């Protein structure tokens, strides 16, 4: 067994799958909305620097699942670890899971960036203010430090000239790029994307996917719920197909494009490709 320091280095150069290189470990996750059983035992792991794309028809539970990863949804059974920490719950001595204190959950969420379908930028704040809000008021960074990082991040997503624009003055694609910069400002270990291009006009999808691609190339660990198969083919290390609250098929983009096994996968792909 290697020390975590060694495994980090090895993971960097050779992607050696050790326990420490797992960012997300979800085990037998069950979720109910009242009587409705929406997640029926989802298990999956995501390694450091891996990009996982989750596909599936609407109602398959894919969005619910990634919302469980930062505890925006409670789970009723199973467990999710991110970076070695149990998310949303703490374990009693008898092994029962009870919901964690709010402040602990908030701290865990700092490590997990999330990008929403509807952007959810703060409309009363400028692009830069959106980005520096959490670094200053959650992380306690100084104003100047947060600002210089914020400007750099906005520049990185191609919006260095829009720092003082309000969300209502930006196009959908620009808003989503601000949202990505806002999430990155917290220096997360993991980024979750919940259908980040579904609310965009077609001509704006490319600019957002480009930013996400660059982010993946920089080594960010990402879980992306998306039907952008072009992006998946180019960027994803792995694709998960969800149906009826379960992962029914899993594999490389290559596998999904050339040799999907499951009937549901085949019919789903035939509709969206």
């Amino acid at each position, binding site marked *: 067994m290697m020390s975590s320091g060694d495994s980090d280095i090895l993971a960097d150069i050779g992607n050696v799958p050790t326990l420490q290189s797992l960012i997300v470990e979800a085990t037998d996750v069950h979720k109910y909305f009242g009587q409705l059983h929406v997640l029926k035992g989802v298990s999956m792991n995501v390694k450091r620097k891996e990009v996982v794309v989750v596909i599936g028809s609407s109602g398959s539970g894919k969005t619910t699942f990634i919302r469980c990863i930062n505890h925006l949804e409670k789970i009723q059974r199973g467990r999710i670890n991110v970076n070695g920490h149990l998310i949303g719950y703490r374990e009693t001595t008898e092994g029962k899971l009870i919901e964690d204190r709010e402040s602990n959950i908030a701290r865990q*969420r700092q490590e997990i960036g999330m990008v*929403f379908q509807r952007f*959810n930028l703060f*409309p009363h704040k400028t692009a830069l203010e959106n980005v520096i*809000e959490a670094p200053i*008021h959650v992380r306690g960074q100084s104003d100047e430090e947060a600002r210089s990082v914020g400007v750099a991040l906005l520049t990185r997503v191609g919006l260095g000239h829009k720092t003082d624009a309000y*969300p209502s003055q930006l196009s959908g694609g620009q808003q989503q790029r601000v949202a990505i910069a806002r999430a990155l400002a917290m220096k997360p270990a993991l980024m979750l994307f919940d259908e980040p291009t579904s609310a965009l006009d077609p001509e704006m999808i490319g600019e957002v996917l480009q930013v996400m691609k660059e982010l993946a190339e920089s080594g960010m660990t990402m879980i992306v719920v998306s039907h952008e198969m072009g992006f998946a083919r180019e960027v994803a290390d792995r694709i998960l197909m969800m149906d009826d609250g379960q992962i029914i098929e899993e594999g490389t983009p290559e596998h999904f494009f050339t040799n999907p096994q499951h009937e549901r996968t085949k019919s789903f792909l035939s509709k969206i490709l």
Partner: protein
Amino acid sequence: MVAVCLLVAVVVAGCSGGSYQYRWEFFFDSIFRPDGLIVSGIWLTVSIAVSSQIIGVILGVFGALGKQAKRRGIRWIANFYVWIFRGTPLLVQISLLYFGLSVAKVYTWPEINLFGLAIPGAIQAGIVALGLNEGAYMTEIVRAGIISVDPGQMEAAKSLGMTYGKAMRRIVLPQAARVIIPPLGNEFNNMLKTTSLLVIISVPELYVVFSRKQGNFFAPFEFFLAAAIWYLLLTTIWGVIQAWIERRLGRGAGGERPPSMRERVFGLGREVDPSLVSGGR
């Protein structure tokens, strides 16, 4: 209303054969050369209204948050509070709080010294009663404001590591304010006038001052008309301030143009749908 009063006065004067001798100097002096009593009455009315409204807003924020609390006990308390104070007459609340509590020796409303300013018990009781009552109405207004904010805002704030409280303070409430402020302005307009109910506990605010004056000189028409003018002046000034605030809030955030000064003060022009003002998108 003033015009109607004048009209009535002329008619009455005509019918009663001029037996009522108008002494207009009472009216004009009250307006153009207000004595110390009137001036202090105005100040008292304004300070009580402002203090009560501040208490009301604070209680309203807590009431609204309480109504949405996870814990059933807190929700119950908030609902109970609103039920009691909206369900009973303000006049009864004022009397019960001041006379009731002091006679029963629960709380005798002793004079309080605040920064060298002695505040009599009746004024304290008045502010507390008006504030508590206002809080119940503000609870519903603030709640509507919070509900109007897209739930995605709270989720985005939480996903960035904010606690519920911080997300409320920094993200949700500032946006809710855009929906809360127009009805809040109307509430304060009401509050300026409702302070006159404190006559029941002899707080020497504007109405009490004029009520005493008319008694002294038996000139009810002249003095009450003057009182009406003063209230009208206060609410008009407030209308101008409110229009200015709403203008500022509306700036830079898209949405619809807030009502102009003329529309605000005289109630002319179109109705403003609060969801349009707040939405942004």
